Every structure is written in structure tokens, then in C-alpha cells.
């Protein structure tokens, strides 16, 4: 039984919110890019609002970027809602915290803005 646990845990990490982990919802428009519970990707200069659905009403949440110079986060004042901003090209991670405890990390990728068609 103990041997099976690490395997189960690995499956749980690979899977999404079904395992009771992070559930992130995009709440604002994002003209280019994508938001999932595992990864946020958008071109430099854009921003998107997201809500941490997996956090309860009586909990406190935070999104903490490992590198704010690449992708930054800011609370909006609405419960569990944040604005994620693509500051400069690169990759980093965002730590999702509930009541100051890490729930896991989201991959955060900022790409170059696509060139206009000639």
C-alpha cells in the first residue's frame, strides 16, 4: 500500500483540480494567451484577472510570483481575485497560497508580443 502512494501522488500532481488542488478561473478578457489551473501564458504587456475558486470564503489567499519582473500578481480587493500581469519575456512560477500555506505552483510564461502581419 505504501509503495502505491507515491504513484498515486504523482498522478494527483499531473491531474488538475480533480485532486483537490488549485482551481484557477479566468474572470476577465485576455485577447491573446491562455489561463489554466496549471499554467498562465500571455504576451508581454497584457494582464488578466483570475479567481482562485479552490479557496473558501473564510480563507485568505495569495498568488506569489517567484519573479515579479517577469510576471506579477496583485490582489483586486475582491475575494480571491487577482490580476496577473505579463511584465517582461521569460518564465517563472506563481505560488498559490491559502491561509499562508502553499497549495502548489502554476507555471507562468510571458512571451514576446506577436509581430503584426506584413
Amino acid at each position, binding site marked *: 500500500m505504501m509503495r502505491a502512494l507515491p504513484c498515486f501522488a504523482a498522478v494527483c500532481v499531473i491531474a488538475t483540480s480533480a485532486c483537490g488542488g488549485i482551481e484557477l478561473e479566468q*474572470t*476577465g*478578457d485576455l*485577447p*491573446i494567451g491562455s489561463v489554466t489551473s496549471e499554467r498562465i501564458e500571455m504576451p*508581454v*504587456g*497584457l*494582464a488578466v*484577472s483570475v479567481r482562485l475558486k479552490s479557496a473558501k470564503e473564510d480563507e485568505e489567499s495569495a498568488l506569489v510570483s517567484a519573479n515579479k519582473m517577469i510576471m506579477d500578481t*496583485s*490582489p*483586486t*480587493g*475582491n475575494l480571491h481575485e487577482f*490580476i496577473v*500581469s*505579463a*511584465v*517582461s*519575456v521569460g518564465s517563472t512560477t506563481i505560488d498559490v497560497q491559502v491561509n499562508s500555506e502553499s497549495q502548489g505552483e502554476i507555471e507562468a510564461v510571458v512571451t514576446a*508580443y*506577436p509581430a*503584426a502581419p506584413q
Partner: protein
Amino acid sequence: MARHVAPLVALAVMGCGSESELVRGSFDYECVADEDSACWGTLSPTGVPDRIAVGGLFAIDYKPFEGAPNHAVVPVSNDRASSNSSGTMQLVEEGVQALLAQNLTTKATSDYLVVNGVRPADLFVSDEQDPSADPLPSIELEVMMPTTFFVRPAGPDGATLPGALTFTWTTEDPMVATVEVAMGTTAEATITAQGAGTTNLTIAAGVVDVTFAVHAVGGMMP
């Protein structure tokens, strides 16, 4: 020049469409210089234009629906837009990008807005200070009759773009025509034909420029 907000008619001509993403307040466009044709007019303002000239200066004010209006509007990335301490901004690249309304007290970002930078493709010259005035195809002047003209940037689709650019005006032959740029705005200049003939007038703003043939009639040939 004191800032003033863009009149409704001017913004309607340019396309008024950018809105607050979180709908927690309102963003208003402000002209920071007289060169911005978005403020050529007298009616009351509303909204933010859906396109702004790359390289043009402007400002945006944010008023929350609740609480004190204690916000600064800043671009997400200095790679694509710049802003100074007085809130004047400039888009340095084409395409969409976000501007954030940051609460100066709580440091939270209350709202955000997506704007679209468009690189000017043309400069329109008219004899009226009106963002919807038909551009002149050529300029004809009576000798020694000063005439005032106005210039504004336009996008690839021919629509006037908001944003204050700096313009230069140059005549090829000052013996035929001279140009005097107005005090306080480079978007306005008075051209005086000095003698009959034809010369070229070039108006430039950054990487875009236009050249007109100026025909001066009457008087003596130089």
C-alpha cells in the same frame, strides 16, 4: 497646457470602445498637449479610444465607483509603454496591452483596461481644427495671405488617431512659401506664400511624414 478630457464628438470620430475589465470604475482619456486631435472640440468627454497612436502622449484617469479616487493608471510593461510621474503615457509598440488602475493607498490593482496601439500611417492636413475634417490633397495659397493649417495622425484605415505627437513643418523653398509653427502646439502652422511658384511642404512626426506641393499664386515670381 493643462490637461483636458477628450470631447465626445472627437472620440466618436476616432472610435470610443475600451472599457474597464472589472467594471469597478471608469477610465477617462485625457489629452496632455494641444497636438492631440482627440481634444479638438468643445463637448464633454467619455471613455477611452479603442486605438491610440504609437508614440503619442496621453493620460488616463480612473475613478472607482466606490471609495475615493486615489488611483494611478500605469502600463503593465515598460517594454511596451512608458509613463512618467505625472501620469503621461506613451505606447511604444503596436498591438494590445493592459493599463492597470493601482490604488495608491492599498497597492491593490482595482481594475484594468486594454488599449490598442496603432502606428500612424499617414498625416492629414486640413484648414480646420477638426479631427473629422477632410484632408487636403494639395495646398494653394495667395501670395502674402497667411493661411493656417492643422495636422493630425491617421492609421492604416484612414481613421484619425488620438495621442499627441510632435510635428515638424518644412518648406523646400522659402522664397515661395514660409511656415511658422504656432506657439504651444506643433499641430498648427501658418503658411505664407512669399512669391508665385510651387514648392514642397513636408510635415513629419517620427517615422511618418507627408509632402505636399504648395502652389502660390499672385504676386511676382521669385
